């Protein structure tokens, strides 16, 4: 046995090594995906016509709109007319505050700006994070699209089911890791992002279809989760570092990973290439693309298999036992460390799956997972922290709730009602639907 001091040093070495390896790994293909930067500053204004076809937003570029960039004092810096991509690039002399306006009379007939106040957009100096700043103006049809109330509700419900499946899938790992180790993992969103971005790498850069690369991505996601445990949290627990300190470590991990993703991937959102252009099929009043229908069915199959696995299989039972009471499970001969490894692997794999689905559903970006983290927390709190079934039910419900609530609140604020649920649950039944009260106090 090594002395305590020595083993600490060894750990320090390994831990730092791991960090550098991690960074190096990602730095490995630096710059390949990000276009080279110049020292010139420019503003890209683009005009997009947005149409809502059965709940899916379609964007078509609008050409021939005149755009003017002025300085804060009103002097005109430059102007241009949008091209076939609906965008025009206007060079600006320096990183400064500008205001960009479009001439509404040059819009094609029948189109108006969706947000009439936004014919002029001001950008402060701070927003020039890179040399180019993109500003988009959205237009829409003049008259409001006529969809009946019941159709809108059903459409939201369908969207909600899709979001709910993704949230449920992503949160199982978060809840089980909490149940088995007591750790609240704020870096869980990054595991989702990992899935989405690796899928993007395979799908768009290596041009492997999602159906083939998907399972690989999911396996990699599982290994990523295992890596979290092996590289960091198992070691921290071994060193006797408490859970609140570990929680702060997950925050650091989250910041690090998100910025590695940003470094590699850039700040823009991008689209997976498989199944990106599809037309809706109509099922009664609901319009859904075959892609979304397939992912929804696949998602349900995955969720049901997870539930069956936990309910029926030996390992699943062991997981639930450890999640329930670590000491008791350990006393009955369950290898808790193995169970924890399985949980990290499964959690990572499910999070990566959620990332792929989310990427197909919307787009991929470096913060796609951390943007969902709050909804996942709301879901598992509702279902009961530490309970796997709770995560499934709670996550699913939160997804539906968020989409449905956009019937009543502006869609930019549609996640706010989830906070309301979170708070109400904590006041009324802090252990959640399926949690046990003893864990909470």
């Amino acid at each position, binding site marked *: 046995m090594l002395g305590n001091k020595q083993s600490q040093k060894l750990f*320090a070495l390994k*831990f*730092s090594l791991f*960090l550098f390896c991690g*960074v190096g790994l990602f730095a490995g293909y*630096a*710059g*390949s995906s*990000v276009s*080279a*930067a110049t020292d010139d500053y420019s503003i890209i204004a683009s005009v997009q016509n947005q149409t809502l076809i059965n709940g899916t937003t379609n964007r078509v570029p609008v050409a021939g709109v005149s755009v003017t960039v002025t300085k804060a004092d009103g002097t005109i810096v430059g102007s241009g007319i949008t091209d076939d991509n609906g965008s025009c690039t206007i060079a600006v002399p320096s990183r400064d505050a500008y205001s960009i306006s479009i001439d509404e009379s040059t819009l094609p007939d029948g189109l108006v700006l969706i*947000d009439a106040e936004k014919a002029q957009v001001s950008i*402060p100096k*701070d927003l020039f994070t*890179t040399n180019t700043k993109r500003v988009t103006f959205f237009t829409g049809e003049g008259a409001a699209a006529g969809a009946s109330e019941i159709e809108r509700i059903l459409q939201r419900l369908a969207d909600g089911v899709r979001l709910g499946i993704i949230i449920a899938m992503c949160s199982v790992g978060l809840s089980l890791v909490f149940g088995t180790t007591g750790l*609240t993992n*704020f870096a869980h969103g990054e595991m989702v992002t990992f899935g989405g971005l690796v899928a993007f790498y395979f799908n768009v850069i290596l041009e492997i279809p999602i159906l083939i690369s998907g399972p690989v991505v999911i396996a990699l996601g599982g290994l990523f989760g295992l890596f979290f445990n092996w590289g960091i949290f198992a070691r*921290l627990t071994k*060193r006797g*570092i*408490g*859970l*609140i*300190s*570990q*929680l*702060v*470590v997950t*925050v*650091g*991990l*989250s*910041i*690090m*990973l*998100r*910025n*590695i993703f*940003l*470094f590699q991937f*850039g700040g823009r959102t991008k689209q997976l290439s498989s199944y990106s252009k599809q037309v809706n099929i109509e099922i009664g009043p609901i319009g859904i693309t075959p892609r979304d229908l397939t992912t929804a069915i696949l998602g349900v199959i995955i969720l049901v298999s997870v539930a069956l696995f936990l309910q029926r299989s030996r390992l699943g039972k062991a997981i639930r036992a450890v999640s329930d009471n670590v000491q008791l499970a350990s006393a009955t001969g369950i290898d808790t460390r193995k169970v924890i490894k399985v949980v990290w692997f499964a959690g990572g794999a499910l999070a990566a799956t959620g990332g792929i689905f989310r990427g197909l559903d919307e787009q991929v970006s470096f913060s796609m997972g951390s943007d969902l983290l*709050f909804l996942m*927390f*709301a879901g598992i*709190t509702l279902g009961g922290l530490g309970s796997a079934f709770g995560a499934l039910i709670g996550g699913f419900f939160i997804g539906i709730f968020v989409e449905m609530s956009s019937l009543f609140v*502006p869609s*930019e*604020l549609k*996640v*706010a009602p*989830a*906070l309301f649920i*979170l*708070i109400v649950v*904590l*006041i009324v039944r*802090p252990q959640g639907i399926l949690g046990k009260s003893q*864990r*909470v*106090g």
Partner: protein
Amino acid sequence: MDWNQIFQNTVRAAVGVDTIYFAIAALGLNIQFGYTGLVNFGQAAFMACGSYGLGMTAQYFGIGLWWGIPLGIIFVIILALIVGIPTLRLRADYLAIVTIATAEIVRLFVRSVKFNKIFGGTEGISNFSRDYRELNPFEPGATYGFEPFTFSGYTLITVLVGWTLVAIFALLVWQLMRSPWGRVIKGIREDEDAVRSLGKNVYAYKMQSLIIGGIVGMFAGMVLALDRGSVQPDNYSRDVTFYVLTALVLGGLAKVSGSIVGSMLFWVLFVFCDNFLREVTRSGPLRIGDFTVIQSTQVGAVNYMLVGIGLMLLMTYRPQGLFGNRKEMALDGR
């Protein structure tokens, strides 16, 4: 490479406005996290209370600037009640979850189109700080001080006011923690049940700590808003809280000097990295052979990546911070 410029920027960062608002925010967070053991991940929202308190005086209410202070305090109390009532009876991580969520929702609200008239939307609020500018005895355009500590008159007033506030709050926190109230607070961090068994209302004490820490944090937001002359919703993102937390852990939790020294160190290191990497990539991406190591658009990501790594390493190897006392670090007493 302009080492002189890098050196000057780095040294100036030790006393600059960024350090000041971080130090004030960290002093507030220290009351909550360091002394009471409350995991508040929403300090950015408390800062936003201050900034928007000031900004809304002009944007919405049309009253004098200094009404922003009582307005901000009201916002802080409302926010603290929202996050505190459901969570302060529960285990520590629930507060973390709810504060991080609430802070994000607050940011979504203030930048929303719906409430554009009240909060100014994504463009934020400007043109509210005239009362403050008129108090400025310095010539805004002129340069004051000596190398490397040179500031324009416009910034100098905020630097002086800011450090005065830092001193006041440092003294306040120091006195508070020597008081009977402070002893109860620290007792709650060590062993909540023991304090409860002595007949103290732990819940009320925690709430007071949350509010007082929030009010201190609010002033950090005010300093930021007054210096920038504008209130921007994206200055109060979730990550700001984490950077303040990193600064706090760097200097040492549960120490008054820790918040201040930590913020200075944080910004010195940050500005050094930032300036150094920008110099390196200024004339084009840094390459070794065909391999692109880093280019100018990636500098920001690298800086924050290092912050994340720093926070992890600190929490693992020196949870007491560079100068802290390990005995005071009983975050896991419960």
